């Protein structure tokens, strides 16, 4: 374990060097991210000029949910962004490099890239949460904060696992990127209260791809609209199942890996 931390530090330092090289790309990335967030909030804001609430959710609550949605996504983005490159690494035979080293292949892949662009998500999310909490006069005690930390960890695990599941299909199909984008895109439903959607969508994001546990259930717990034990239990169960299945699937895929010819 200690060795892995040390290795992560070395990888991290390498990555920072790369980043400094492409400073402008980085700042433009942040700028475009802010604009995308602005458009999301603009949409909700403009809608609420015509309606007072969406199935019982006020504008402040909607923005709170929107902010909460960013945090687990940001954590996943920060640490495991390199999983997105697995399909192309498989295609080019670059997985070879991971296999010849005496370190866990998935760890190597994840450690290769640290994505500071994700601070955009984390900062925007925190600002939106703090701002709307203040407007609604919410205050959180120790229990809420402790449970929120657990929920955020579970939420990020759900993201990472689903991303890994998608990426692993790349061992059998030519390019699994569209599949990954599609599955990851289902998370967009979780930006809004799940209850406003038809039953089959609710089932999809609660049971099949449990993105509702990433943002909707935790946010509704913090807003006092949902029972904490159901939320925490659901999150822990969902994230455990998904991370175990995703990791097993990845190992299975790795076992059937054939390198690309050169």
């Amino acid at each position: 374990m200690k060795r892995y931390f040390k290795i992560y530090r070395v990888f991290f330092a390498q990555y920072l060097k790369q980043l400094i090289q492409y400073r402008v790309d980085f700042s433009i990335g942040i700028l475009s991210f802010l604009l995308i967030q602005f458009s999301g909030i603009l949409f909700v804001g403009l809608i609420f000029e015509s309606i007072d609430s969406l199935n019982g959710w006020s504008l402040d609550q909607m923005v709170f949910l929107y902010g909460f949605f960013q945090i687990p996504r940001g954590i996943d983005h920060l640490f495991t962004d390199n999983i997105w490159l697995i399909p192309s690494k498989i295609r080019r035979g670059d997985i070879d490099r991971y296999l010849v080293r005496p370190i866990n292949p998935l760890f190597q892949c994840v450690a290769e890239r640290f994505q500071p662009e994700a601070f955009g998500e984390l900062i925007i999310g925190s600002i939106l949460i703090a701002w709307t909490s203040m407007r609604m006069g919410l205050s959180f005690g120790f229990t809420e904060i402790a449970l929120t930390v657990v929920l955020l960890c579970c939420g990020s695990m759900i993201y990472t696992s689903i991303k890994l599941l998608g990426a692993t299909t790349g061992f059998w199909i030519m390019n699994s990127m569209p599949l990954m984008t599609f599955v990851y895109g289902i998370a967009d439903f979780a930006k809004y209260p799940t209850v406003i959607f038809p039953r089959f969508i609710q089932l999809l994001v609660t049971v099949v791809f449990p993105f509702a546990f990433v943002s909707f259930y935790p946010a509704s717990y913090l807003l006092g609209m949902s029972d904490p034990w159901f939320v925490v239990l659901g999150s822990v169960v969902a994230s455990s199942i998904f991370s175990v299945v995703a990791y097993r699937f990845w190992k299975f895929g790795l076992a059937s890996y054939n390198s690309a010819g050169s």
Partner: protein
Amino acid sequence: MYRVHILLWVFGDFFSLGLTILLWVAIYANSPTEMIRGFTLIQMIFYNLIIHLTGSITYMSPLSDVAEDYYDGRISMSLIKPASYAIQLFFRNLGNNLFSNLFITLPTFLLIAAVSLATHQTESLAWLSFPVFLFSSLLGLFINYFANFIFSNLVFYTDATFGMFQLNQAIVRIFSGALIPLNFFPGWLRSLAGFLPYAGVQYIPAMILLGRTTGNDLLSAIGVQVLWVVFLGVAAQLVWSHSLSRMKVMGG
């Protein structure tokens, strides 16, 4: 070999359209009035379907090609060919555009026709204006191409690629009407949209097919689009020659 790839791409595209429509259904269910900013629910659904249609007809994305050509130095090979870079790139992108027309435009069109028949809402759409709509969309395609081409020149000045691509997409999404009909915008944002060419890419053609732009307004809307095509076409040449004068090509 790439069948699964295409299928998933199309599926994902329609999935996000589905999300938008379900969201609007929920919004209208919570609205005290049947009409929001001049749109009933069914008209709003048509709006989103048509925006999806125009988005696909006008699809032109030269930025990734420019970035790729620039980075691996292949751009120097393009410069010695007897057609200008903007024209070469246009035809390269036209291939992707035809592809998008085959797999997205056609199904979307059938979907619109089916919804319009199923809901007996044929009067929500101005089918007689269909040829004008197509013409306007074609102008939209040129506006989109030139605007994106000019934007992609920023790659030469900033060396930024992926960030640029996202920035361009975000701007287009807001100001083309893809996010929300432009008449939902507050005054200042509306005027900003008026200074940008993107409304001419999707919003103007969509409003024609919805039958909301007629008579003299129709003529002036098309006129605005023509002016944008001419203006951006000239601007693209100027920007390109400026980029060329300071471009450094590495490798190739």
